[in-house]
């Protein structure tokens, strides 16, 4: 209990420190470059300077933390990717050459593209549908909670859940996997789902869609509720039906959020590895980049060079998404 109390105190202290930082720096800035009560030219000069500085005050803690926790490791990875397994001898591009000649790597790239095509689309789609529909029914909150549950289940739990879905027992014996029980009930042969190449990728994807729909739903639900009532009411008065309102009025207004959800899940898919690790560990041709990286990094002492090279590829794959986001942000700013 004492520990928890201290946690609360620290938390409050931390929050206060943050608040004090933002408030304090802001105050100091206003004191150094006052704009109120000054004559026109000086005021506008001061205003210009403080307006140029203020964003950086707001951004500083975030940028600082991200630099240490993310940007520094990125540079470290790039550096490692040009070194051997111990991270000490420079080997030039050897790791990259090896990578592109490695069958497992090509397999992973292919699988990752499959994942990228399927998971973000399905998760966002279901999330949007559920967010929109549950808004209109009295038990919507209950429904949302149930859909959200998979997100809250720790990954260790989720892997057992899916064992009880995909488990395979020989034909003629009692199935403990739900999917095979259904299949045999219809008179078909039971299948060892995880071992069927190509299709097994989709069975693995189903798990991530199952988990991530809750994420999409919560974010999109918040966005849908941010839509001003008037726009919807106006459409209703104009005689629009439910579908028209949804597609013509609501979707365009939350388009930005849909893109954000899509982007987030896409990036998550690039990093997906615990599902694959726990269910197949990349066997039966289900390998994905992040799991391959993990494999090379840590298994049997690890090969930091190759692990880092794969990490660099994962990070490079995000570039198109970055470019697309830059464009969006630029467009948005013109609109402002």
């Amino acid at each position, binding site marked *: 209990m004492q520990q*928890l109390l201290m946690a609360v105190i620290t938390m409050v202290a931390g929050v206060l420190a943050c608040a004090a930082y933002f408030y304090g720096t802001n105050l100091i800035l206003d004191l150094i470059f006052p704009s109120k009560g000054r004559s026109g030219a000086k005021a506008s000069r001061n205003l210009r300077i403080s307006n140029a500085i203020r964003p950086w005050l707001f951004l500083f803690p975030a*940028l600082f933390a991200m630099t240490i926790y993310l940007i520094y490791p990125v540079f470290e990875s790039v550096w490692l990717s040009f070194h051997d397994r111990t991270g000490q001898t420079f080997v030039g591009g050897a790791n990259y050459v090896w990578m592109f000649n490695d069958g497992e790597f090509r397999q992973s790239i292919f699988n990752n593209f499959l994942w990228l095509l399927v998971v973000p689309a399905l998760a966002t789609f279901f999330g949007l549908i559920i967010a929109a529909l549950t808004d209109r029914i009295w038990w919507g909150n209950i429904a949302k*909670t149930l859909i959200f549950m998979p997100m809250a*289940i720790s990954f260790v739990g989720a892997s057992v859940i899916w064992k009880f879905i995909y488990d395979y027992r020989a034909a003629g014996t*009692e199935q*403990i996997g739900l999917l095979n029980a259904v299949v045999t009930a219809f008179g078909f042969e039971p299948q060892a789902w995880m071992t069927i190449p190509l299709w097994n990728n989709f069975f693995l994807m189903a798990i991530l869609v199952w988990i991530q729909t809750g994420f999409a739903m919560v974010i999109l639900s918040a966005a849908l509720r941010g839509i001003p009532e008037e726009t919807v009411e106006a459409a209703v008065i104009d005689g629009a039906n439910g579908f028209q309102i949804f597609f013509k009025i609501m979707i365009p207004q939350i388009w930005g959020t849909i893109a954000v959800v899509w982007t987030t899940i896409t990036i998550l898919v690039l990093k997906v590895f615990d599902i694959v690790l726990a269910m197949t560990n990349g066997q039966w041709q289900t390998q994905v980049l992040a799991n391959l990286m993990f494999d090379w990094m840590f298994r049997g002492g690890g090969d930091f060079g190759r692990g880092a090279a794969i990490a660099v590829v994962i990070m490079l794959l995000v570039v198109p998404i970055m470019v697309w986001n830059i464009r969006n942000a630029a467009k948005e700013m013109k609109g402002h």
Partner: protein
Amino acid sequence: MIASKRSSLVLFVHLSVLLLVILWTIPTAGLLISSLRDKDQLAVSGWWTALSTSSQNLTVRAPGPEAQQQRDGKFVISGNVLDNPGAKVSAFGFRTQEPAAFEPGQTATLSDGERLTVQEDGAFEIVSDVAMEGSRGQRIFVQAAVPSRFTFDNYREVLNAEGIGASFINSLTVAIPSTIIPILVAAFAAYALAWMPFPGRTILIAVVVGLLVVPLQMSLIPLLKLYNGVGAFLGLPAKTYVGIWLAHMGFGLPLAIYLLRNYMAGLPREIMESARVDGASDFDIFVKIILPLSFPALASFAIFQFLWTWNDLLIAMVFLGTGNNELVLTGRLVNLLGSRGGNWEILTASAFITIIIPLIVFFSLQRYLVRGLLAGSVKGG
């Protein structure tokens, strides 16, 4: 006409949500039912069979010869093969190869001349003319219809585990500050990126998106090195709560900034402009207008950040340590599984024990995801 169309549409909505909810809940329901089942049954029959009476093949060992009693000049061992009062025997046998060779009530003659009878209610009798010898009891194989039975044993086992309370507190100590601090930091950054014009803004946004993809595993070694260095320099331990809070903050910030910036950018421009005209500074605008308006976004991010920190195992293991006093709840539960990771019954129960707190968080924050915060304002931007 229109009314009936409306109501059929409403019905359609209800049905489709119901369908989706069922689809999404079935796996979890399976886990819930499994967690209430006997652990030996888990690997033998599907969880859905636990709901109804099922036909099972049981192997029961009769008491050994030391339990025999003399009755009418015969030696008798008796007892009951069923421990579940509602169950019914449909067949029995004494050889594992033929577990259902006899009907209840029939008498089977064993290889050594003993006679075995099992009744429908499970009562059995082994009768022998001479005193029975040996050290072990006879195996009896029965086919029985067993009604569903549930047990809280799995939960009891998990909750009684040593140190689980301390781990629970460790988890809270990690998760709460790791949720709140990044939100505050991210909110300011998001506002700057959404509404304060400065050179390089779009590039920064792109950098934030790019940082979303940095694989966590790549950061662990350089960061722990850094922590060790800083720790040694300051004479402090390297693995502390402060360290893990900052780590969770660092890893969570890109998503927080990205989500919040998107939300804030969608807020109507007119509100801010009218506030500026009134002479409000950016700081005032942020604290008095943006922050309250962003509550749904803040709440939704808080839910996720809490979830991740609560369910995280990797970061906690690396930055907090694996010692007995440092274990967070996830670590403790995983350790319960034993060195070879069997014991699914423990997994099933612990999955539901860990889910409780995140669900409470979800419920309590869900009411902030409300409609109408923007009601009355004009949609812009």
